[in-house]
């Protein structure tokens, strides 16, 4: 530690005001505060400073993401070896998935941090830590077979159009990770959906009989348009409900395992970083809408028990890590309930009514991101009204 401190101190004057490289000071700051606790002190007034700053908050989220990511890597290897009919050890599965996933993570961080630093330099702001989580979330919601240049393009789009134009970290209207995914989903639909993109299998590699690679969402969608019952669609290759809960199903890299994601949810809730109100209300919203559709009945989508919506597709991942994004979510306590409830409701609605877009949670969250400020405004206004009435009475 002393050694590092000495190095940092040695170079500090070069980057401080008047130094030779002072124009790079925000990059230097970012590095220094990454290595050491920031020594900024408030200049006036009696402020109580909490030990938890943006960097630590972001770090907790990264820790919460790790179980899902680790499981996702293992699952990728598991899916591949199962499809090609090979029996391999746990470690080999994990290794295979890691080799597939790491380049995506590196590209996401490289492009995103590069752009963030360039903007910070240009505007003379300090570099923000906001991208630490976004940069990991982007690869986690990608299909494993996505070309790397697409990841780079989507990251650049999300950081510049989704975040920097609004003023950078903390000012963005939309969740940047979902903006990146949405950009690819609309722009390159064939590479982002269907049954080929989830598990990378090279051309010519033989797969087992019965292997399809389709997700549960895809299967139920097919069943509903064919008029077959929903239960049949879950019997096909590796998409039973217990598989869905465990996570041994095809899907975006880290979205599959409900258990690993709930582990992350516990970390977020215990540390108070993620709002349990939003998570709970999202689940309530999905169950409510699913229940209403169950009563209506009709095709496979309507008949599927409401709680299945919670474990298939990206619902859990979105609920735990995307809806709780403190920037783009509703801020007021009552607003959080409304915000989450409508995300859940819209997710099920989009899944069932729009066969073109099987993954409803992505769109539901982005849509409610846009409405979050309005929700907050109404909540605050109604509170003011209530209190005014109390004064009058």
């Amino acid at each position: 530690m002393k050694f590092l401190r000495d190095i940092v101190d040695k170079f500090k004057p070069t980057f401080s005001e008047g130094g030779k490289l002072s124009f790079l000071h925000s990059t230097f700051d970012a590095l220094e505060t990454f290595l050491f606790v920031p020594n900024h002190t408030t200049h006036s007034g009696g402020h109580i400073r909490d030990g938890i700053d943006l960097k630590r908050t972001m770090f907790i989220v990264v820790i919460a993401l790790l179980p899902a990511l680790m499981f996702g890597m293992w699952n990728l290897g598991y899916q591949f070896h199962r499809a090609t009919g090979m029996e391999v050890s746990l470690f080999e599965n994990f290794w295979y998935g890691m080799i597939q996933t790491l380049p995506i993570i590196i590209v996401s961080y490289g492009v995103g941090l590069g752009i963030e630093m360039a903007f910070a330099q240009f505007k003379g702001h300090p570099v923000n830590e906001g991208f630490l989580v976004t940069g990991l979330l982007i690869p986690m919601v990608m299909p494993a077979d996505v070309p790397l240049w697409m990841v780079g393009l989507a990251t650049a789009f999300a950081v510049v159009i989704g975040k920097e134009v609004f003023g950078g970290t903390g000012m963005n209207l939309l969740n940047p990770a979902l903006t990146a995914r949405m950009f690819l989903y609309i722009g390159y639909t064939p590479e982002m959906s269907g049954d080929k993109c989830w598990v990378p299998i090279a051309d010519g590699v033989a797969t087992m009989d019965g292997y399809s690679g389709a997700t549960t969402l895809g299967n139920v969608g097919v069943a509903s348009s064919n008029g077959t019952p929903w239960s049949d669609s879950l019997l096909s290759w590796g998409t039973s409900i217990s598989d869905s809960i465990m996570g041994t199903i095809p899907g975006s890299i880290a979205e599959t395992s409900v258990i690993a994601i709930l582990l992350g949810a516990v970390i977020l809730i215990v540390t108070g970083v993620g709002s349990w109100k939003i998570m709970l209300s999202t689940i309530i919203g999905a169950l409510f809408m699913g229940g209403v559709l169950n009563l209506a009945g009709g095709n496979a989508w309507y008949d599927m028990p409401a709680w299945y919506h919670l474990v298939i597709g990206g619902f859990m991942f979105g609920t735990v890590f995307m809806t709780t994004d403190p920037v783009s979510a509703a801020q007021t306590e009552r607003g959080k309930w409304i915000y989450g409830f409508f995300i859940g409701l819209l997710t099920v609605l989009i899944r069932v009514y729009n066969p073109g877009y099987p993954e409803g949670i992505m769109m539901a969250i982005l849509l409610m991101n846009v409405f979050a400020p309005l929700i907050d405004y109404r909540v605050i206004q109604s509170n003011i009204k209530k209190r005014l009435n109390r004064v009058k009475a």
Partner: protein
Amino acid sequence: MSTEVIEKVEVKKETEALFSKKRKSLVSNPMDSDNPITIQVLGICSALAVTIALQGTLIMAFAVMFVVMMANVVISALRNTIPNRIRIIVQLVVVATLVATVDQTLRAFAYEQSKALSVFVGLIITNCIVMGRLEAFAMGNKPWDSLLDGFGNSLGYAWIIIAIAFVRELLGAGKLFGFQVLDKAWYTANGFFATPAAACIILGVIIWILRARSGYVED
């Protein structure tokens, strides 16, 4: 911004040069510092709807140019005889006549393009730029000035939508004017740029660049 009336100097001077400095600015201002789309943010609806390919966009640009210029001249010529209380309806009648002319001409001579542009030619009637120029300029200025003003504003509108269409057709299909310019062998067409949402974002980026350059800040 859009309600300026050029004060006439005819009292002092008998004749003003056909292309005096002030008259040149009638054409050049709307190209940049007083652009109907990027500064006044008018006519957005058609800028998003018709910009998927350059060819249709170009036709749309000419159609708007014709309507704005002619309407400006006609209303400017009639301006002293139009009763103030019914001026909007008079303007609408003139604009609707011109738009119907354009629409029918396109149907007669460029049927395919007319079909591709569908209702948006007819919707030039509701393009805010047309009514905006009539209200803000033609009602208070002479026909020649109004013609120049109409020309400038429609050109300002045209270059923005052509720029948007250029980006959208190039990235969305790898084509320009229908010709494949980006080889399909290495270029994957980005479907996002084929959606009107992309036009909204490209327009935003154009506004961003122009305002960063000019330092214009919204009040």
